[in-house]
């Protein structure tokens, strides 16, 4: 596999211009949607089937009672261990040779399991096409040597595109510099490939703890529950089975008339 490509979103550089949001819509030919009042400048409230890049405007109260902005251009994380990809029963969701996660629109049948399996609430169902949609990492662009539309258009380089290992090194230096400048909470989110979900191929530099940005502190792979829950189901099946056998067995001896040999369990 080629070197993994990634996007690094440095929220300390974001000015909330939403150029990324617009560039994404234009390149991917995503129609506009009815705006919705979220109580702040942010629009929309969350990712939709027509909004793959979304600038979050977070109002954070300061010690003196005034509000300060935290701005973050949010996007599909293209997780190394992706809940949506593991949930997809059709194989429509696949990993590209760049390490990103895509939904093949020609295969998706609209079961919507991926929608509930994304730990970040990114994947959305498109009622017009009957299929699931999300950020494609501009697969058409990166395959042809161009950066994703959002990264290309970002005027402050808050969104950077490149090889993952290069970007992680760069991000580490940036965190150290910010800490020196007094941003005590500056931290990387999803940069560590040994961290949650095996690392995110769209990772972030945050100026506060993840939950302030409505991100899970420790995102988990949904499929972690399958084994334990299945074993518990098998156990309860055995108990139900015993109860039913007791109810049907002829009293005072083995079942009459059924030639089942050494079958009594």
């Amino acid at each position, binding site marked *: 596999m080629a070197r993994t490509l990634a996007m690094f979103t440095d929220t300390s550089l974001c000015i909330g211009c939403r150029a990324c949001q617009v560039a994404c819509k234009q390149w991917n030919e995503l129609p506009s949607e009815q705006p919705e009042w979220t109580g702040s400048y942010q629009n929309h409230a*969350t990712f939709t089937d027509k909004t793959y890049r979304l600038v979050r405007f977070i109002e954070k109260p300061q010690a003196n009672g005034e509000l300060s902005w935290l701005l973050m251009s949010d996007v599909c994380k293209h997780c190394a261990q992706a809940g949506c990809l*593991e*949930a*997809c*029963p*059709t*194989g429509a969701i696949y990993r590209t040779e760049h390490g990103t996660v895509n939904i093949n629109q020609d*295969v*998706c*049948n*609209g*079961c*919507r*399991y991926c*929608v*509930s*399996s*994304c*730990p*970040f*609430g990114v*994947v*959305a*169902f*498109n*009622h017009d*096409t*009957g*299929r*699931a949609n999300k950020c494609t990492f501009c697969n058409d662009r990166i395959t042809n040597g161009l950066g994703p539309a959002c990264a290309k258009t970002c005027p402050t380089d808050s969104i950077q595109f490149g090889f993952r290992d290069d970007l992680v090194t760069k991000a580490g230096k940036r965190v150290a510099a910010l800490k020196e400048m007094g941003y005590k909470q500056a931290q990387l989110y999803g940069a560590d490939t040994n961290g949650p979900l095996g690392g995110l191929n769209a990772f972030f530099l945050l100026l506060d703890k993840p939950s302030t940005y*409505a991100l899970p502190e420790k995102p988990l792979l*949904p*499929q972690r*529950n*399958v084994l334990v*829950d*299945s074993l*518990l*189901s098998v*156990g*309860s*099946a055995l*108990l*139900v*089975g015993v*109860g*039913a*056998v*007791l*109810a*049907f*067995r*002829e009293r005072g001896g083995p*079942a*009459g*008339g*059924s*030639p*089942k040999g050494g*079958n009594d369990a």
Partner: protein
Amino acid sequence: MLKNPDWHLLIVWYFFLGGIAGGAYFTAAIADNFGSPRDKSVFRIGYVLALLLIGLCAILLILDLGTPSRFFNMVTNFRFWNPMSIGAWMLGIFGIFAFVSSALSFAGGEGVAPLRRRLSLLGSIAGFFIAAYTGVLLSATALPFWTDGRLMGALFLVSGASTGMAAISLLLYLSGESAGEGFGKVKRADRYAIMFEILVLAAFLVLLGGAAGPLVSGSLAPLFWGGLVVVGLVIPLLVDLVGLKLPPAVPAALVLVGGFVLRYVIVMANA
């Protein structure tokens, strides 16, 4: 901000009827293998009911897809760690079992009985899978209410068994067979299943802890406590234990109502 999958009534009905199909088949298999030859009406009804319901289930699932014409894409892959993928395969496999068992319980005479009995034990595994996997499927998502109680699959399985037994009782009653001993045995089996379901449900709520909010104190709480706990579990069990003189169809119908309410509140709590 997490997203719900927009699963509504089609899926609720599927979870409910799939549970009955699996439970009815399993009950029929037990009656066939461990009961007396006089329990024939029990296993005949169980096998045929499973066959009819599993066919209906497939239709409900296809209709729920965003692109129904692509339903076949579900089985162009096999992903053993993915409940929906194995579920789609198992739906077909269970359908074949239900078909063969139904056929062998009407045709072939006593000569095919040993084959039918052995097949039905294998088919019961598929039936239990159909009843339980929908719960495991919900618990393998990112939504806390579905994922924090480890017993969703077990709960669906026990409820499937119980509602399967209740459906057989109801059909026995409607076909005038409620005086036979088979009816009494199904009722006794359902008594054990209901008792077990109450225990599993209690453990499930404890495991859910704070995430149980939508069920125990939200807008669905009256339906959960009234429709499932009281109407669907406690009353049928009390009627049975006290020996109240009611038409036998009543407790069976209440168990079925409870089984539907269980799937309804769990699916709709995230809708």
